[in-house]
């Protein structure tokens, strides 16, 4: 290692002895370009596990490969045409969008409410922060099973509703197509709202209290102060939160797969679960990868749109 790095500079000229490049007389020295070798191990893993397979995946999406047989045929855009002409995949695409939208709105809404509720004044603040955040670190598979049980017809949710006199709201939560979708969203929000809360709390802490005090002196009520002072200053936190929930909502797999398996009757199938089933249960690798590419495209389009939109807002 040392002998390798030593052979480069010496020939050029004696005055610059060892490490001469780093000690040029003017300004802060630029580190040697040889340092880029430090990036090699990371690039090797990244290339092997992400870059190369992504490009190969891109190519396989245009074939009819089943994942098992040695050969496959090039089928052009057939897989993509099938995605956009089959009812089941179109429904999965729609559901993916609906889930991502619902989760983005609800998770951030709940997160914001929790953050504002905890921000100042109350004594249980620190304990409650730990409580609200705890589901974020719990394994999603465990969360999904826990709720799957809670949502059974004679499970704890229906029991709790009855106990507080809301027995009329009893549902066959996971058995009904609409309520199954609602349940998935509820579970995801339950698990991740604490994450949004924590990011909003950090945003709230960065707002100088004087601003709100000044507004109060000027006679602004609590809602007005939130609307005109706090909320605009939370723009960065909102951008981060929306970006995270959009990406998370689109890629969500475990919650749906464990909670409903995409059912009942495909009502909660998303691109993630459909691509898993196509590739690994129905032996349609090519089609599965085409679905993954469509998902990738959807995520990219929405993240970039959101990024540009929030940038424009920040400028104006």
């Amino acid at each position, binding site marked *: 290692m040392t002998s390798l790095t030593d052979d480069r500079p010496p020939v050029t000229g004696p005055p610059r002895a060892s490490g001469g490049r780093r000690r040029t007389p003017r300004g802060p020295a630029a580190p040697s370009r040889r340092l880029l070798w*430090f990036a090699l191990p990371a690039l090797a893993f990244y290339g092997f596990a992400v870059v190369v397979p992504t490009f190969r995946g891109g190519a396989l999406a245009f074939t009819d490969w089943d994942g098992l047989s040695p050969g496959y045929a090039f089928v052009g855009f057939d897989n993509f045409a099938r995605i956009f002409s089959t009812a089941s995949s179109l429904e999965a695409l729609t559901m993916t969008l609906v889930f991502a939208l619902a989760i983005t709105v609800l998770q951030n809404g709940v997160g914001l409410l929790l953050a504002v509720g905890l921000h100042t004044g109350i004594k249980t603040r620190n304990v409650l922060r730990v409580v609200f955040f705890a589901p974020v670190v719990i394994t999603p598979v465990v969360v999904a099973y826990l709720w799957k049980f809670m949502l059974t017809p004679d499970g704890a949710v229906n029991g709790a509703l009855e106990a507080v006199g809301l027995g009329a709201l009893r549902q066959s939560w996971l058995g009904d197509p609409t309520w199954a979708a609602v349940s998935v969203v509820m579970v995801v929000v339950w698990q991740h709202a604490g994450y949004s809360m924590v990011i909003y709390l950090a945003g709230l802490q960065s707002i100088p209290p004087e601003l709100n005090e000044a507004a109060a002196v000027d006679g602004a009520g609590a809602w007005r102060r939130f609307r005109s002072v706090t909320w605009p200053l939370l723009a960065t936190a909102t951008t981060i939160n929306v970006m*995270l929930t959009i990406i998370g909502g689109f890629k969500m797999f475990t919650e749906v797969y464990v909670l409903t398996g995409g059912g009942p009757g495909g009502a909660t199938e998303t691109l993630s679960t459909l691509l898993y089933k196509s590739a690994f249960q129905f032996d349609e690798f090519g089609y599965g990868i085409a679905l993954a590419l469509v998902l990738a495209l959807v995520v990219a389009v929405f993240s970039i749109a959101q990024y540009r939109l929030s940038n424009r807002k920040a400028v104006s």
Partner: protein
Amino acid sequence: MFRYTKGVLAREVVMLLAALVFVLPVYVLVNLSLRPAGDVSSPLLPVTSPTLGNYVAAWEQAGLAGALLNSTIVTSVSVVLIVVISSMAAYPLARITSRLSSTLFWLVLAGMLIPFQVALIPLYQTMRDVGLLGSLWALVIFYAGAQVPFSIFLYTGFLRTIPKEYEEAAAIDGAGSLRTFRSVIFPLLRPVTGTVVILNAITVWNDFLVPLLYLSGTPQQTVTVALYAFVGQYVSNWPIVFAGLVISIMPVLVVYFLLQRRIISGFAGGLKG
């Protein structure tokens, strides 16, 4: 320090009620896992004669001992590897301003946008061809590659706030670049290393899809996959299933409650960059 006003008191009560929504499911989880067979009372009522029998049964039948060990190995090896390669890579990427360096940096960041599902299937094939399918190494290699973009992103952001004087001084003292990195840069990165460790450890420990794919049909299992298989067998026996769930989240929860301040700020701060 402060006095209660009516408004604050009301807010406190509302927040405590909200906390109930978060605590209740966990209460049901633990409560049910202690319930003896044949007890069919509501899962909301505290168990009258609690038993640890479900835990014994779950421990033995779900193969949780092996799965916990595998998850621990995969998580710790992956996290150490991620920390080493990402911090090393971030050093030149943050410091060198050449076009090559910034191109590499953006190429790596692009990885944060790519949904990993696209890569997952072709990589499955490669892992099978090189005989790594069913081995824990397949997971370690995947996580190392897939988590590099985010980790490098965190490290470079932090490195840019560290003045160059430290490493210049080390260079003047005659330290080579590897030495400078190891004894000057890396120790300075400690705060962000904490964040990188926390976020990656939780991601890797909790991951379900990747081990489901790369380990399926083999005796090697991680906790999430072992649970999935176990529940498949004991669907109707919820007390045993719940005991298994409690065992599997114990390590995470213990670490969480011990380090909660650090973990929460890791999540909140890691994304400000």
